[in-house]
């Protein structure tokens, strides 16, 4: 098109236009690569000299146990977050502006707290000092140093991230599509299932992976509410104090290996289904 429009441009100048665009492209790629390097730089510390990594009997057992704890209990927390958070987000997405503002504050409060503070508030509110804590205690529900405490903490940590992301995902579905679906005989629940959910899949996936990433690495709150059973972050802390850095590194590698696949997979599946 350009060549036709500017016939007096000599070949030489036309060539320059092309290389400019190319070099700009490579500039952008270079900048992006630099950014990636900067972001991944801390991981070069794995090559630091801390002495030979320790992975003997005394380290291995608790480490693998902490992996099991983290994976299973965080997965359970995610399940709860999705089951409770999705309909809640659907409701909020349909609210008027004023109610939405209130909801945003409500959802932000727990996740704004420094994790240590959240842990302390949770132990106070669910512990024997509080009425609810006493009731739970009577029914044999242990709210400190138990799997229940672990999961509850993670739900409080992750819920806000998921719901806020899910609301944005539902907002991205055009209202007219939902109204057309309704005029085509679908109840609000059916519209949600057949139109809203499928179209917000990617956004929901991102929201869930954020909640997962946040929860599985959570230390500050969990170390207060659920020192047992030890998940990976608490175990890293224990390893550091008992054996030092050589025992921290291998568990760190394992953590990355087990924590990364889920959110990554979630993105892959969501992307694929989008173009189905």
């Amino acid at each position, binding site marked *: 098109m350009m060549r036709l429009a500017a016939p007096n441009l000599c070949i030489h100048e036309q060539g320059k236009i092309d290389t400019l665009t190319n070099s700009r492209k490579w500039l952008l790629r270079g900048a992006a690569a630099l950014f990636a390097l900067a972001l991944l730089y801390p991981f070069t510390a794995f090559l630091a000299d801390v002495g030979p990594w320790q992975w003997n009997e005394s380290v291995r057992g608790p480490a693998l146990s902490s992996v099991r704890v983290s994976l299973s209990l965080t997965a359970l927390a995610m399940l709860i977050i999705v089951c409770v958070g999705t309909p809640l987000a659907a409701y909020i997405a349909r609210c008027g502006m004023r109610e939405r503002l209130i909801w945003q504050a409500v959802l932000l409060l727990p996740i704004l707290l420094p994790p240590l503070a959240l842990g302390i508030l949770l132990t106070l509110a669910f512990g024997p000092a509080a009425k609810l804590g006493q009731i739970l205690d009577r029914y044999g529900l242990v709210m400190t140093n138990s799997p229940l405490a672990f999961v509850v903490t993670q739900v409080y940590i992750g819920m806000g991230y998921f719901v806020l992301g899910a609301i944005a995902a539902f907002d991205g579905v*055009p209202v*007219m*599509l939902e*109204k*057309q*679906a*309704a*005029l*085509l*005989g*679908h*109840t*609000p629940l*059916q*519209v949600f299932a*057949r*139109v809203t959910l*499928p*179209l917000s899949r990617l956004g929901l996936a991102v929201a869930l992976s954020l909640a997962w990433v946040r929860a599985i690495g959570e230390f500050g709150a969990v170390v207060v509410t659920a020192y047992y059973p030890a998940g990976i972050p608490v175990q890293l802390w224990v390893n550091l104090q008992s054996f030092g850095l050589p025992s921290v590194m291998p568990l760190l590698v394992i953590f990355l290996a087990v924590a990364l696949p889920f959110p990554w997979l979630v993105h892959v599946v969501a992307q694929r289904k*989008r*173009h*189905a």
Partner: protein
Amino acid sequence: MLSVSIRKQRRDFSVSVAFDLNPGGSLALFGASGSGKSTVLSCIAGLEEPDQGYVRLNDVSLFPPGLPLHKRSIGYLTQEPNLFPHLSVRENVHFGVKNSSNGHFSAGLAEWISELRDRLDLSTLWDAPASGISGGQARRVSLARTLARRPSLLLLDEPFTGLDRQLVRKLIDDLIFWNQKLGFTMIAVDHQAEVLERLCPQQALVLEMGKIMQRGSWEELRHAPATEQLRSLLSPL
């Protein structure tokens, strides 16, 4: 029978219209851009609620109180085809119709959908994803989807804008054909007079600043336009 008498406040003026339409009849709503035509349709469809008044379709009160959208037997077509992008053309067309328990449509329904598909030339597109077809094709799919349900009332809000003349002519003829065959009531809104003249020649309402300025057939409108604006809208470019 469709009975409408509504009032809705817009920013600069209030829309205030009342009319009745016999079953199977077709009505044109004509007026300049921003005269409130779309508001009337969206109030009837239930996308908005009137401030006052009533809307009744075949002894069912659509308003007040506002009947939920999914209970209304209304088809609503606009300029935007609003197809479901995650579904194929076929799934879009089938969206509003229920299949029986074994997953197949009743014979009559299957035949009707085939007729829609063939007459609107959707066979080659049938299994294509709805997100991958052209604008003109999408509007045909949208029409098929809306009619597959055999609604009692069809509302058309400038659905032909931007389509080529040949396609518009064909779609109008298809609509007239099906209107006679199925007997649905139809209201069409447009700011192009010739489209409405062909589609709903017998009855037309002219809107100006939300009020009905004239009622009648297109012949009457052309012969004796009630307002200066109407005369201007009807005269050649």
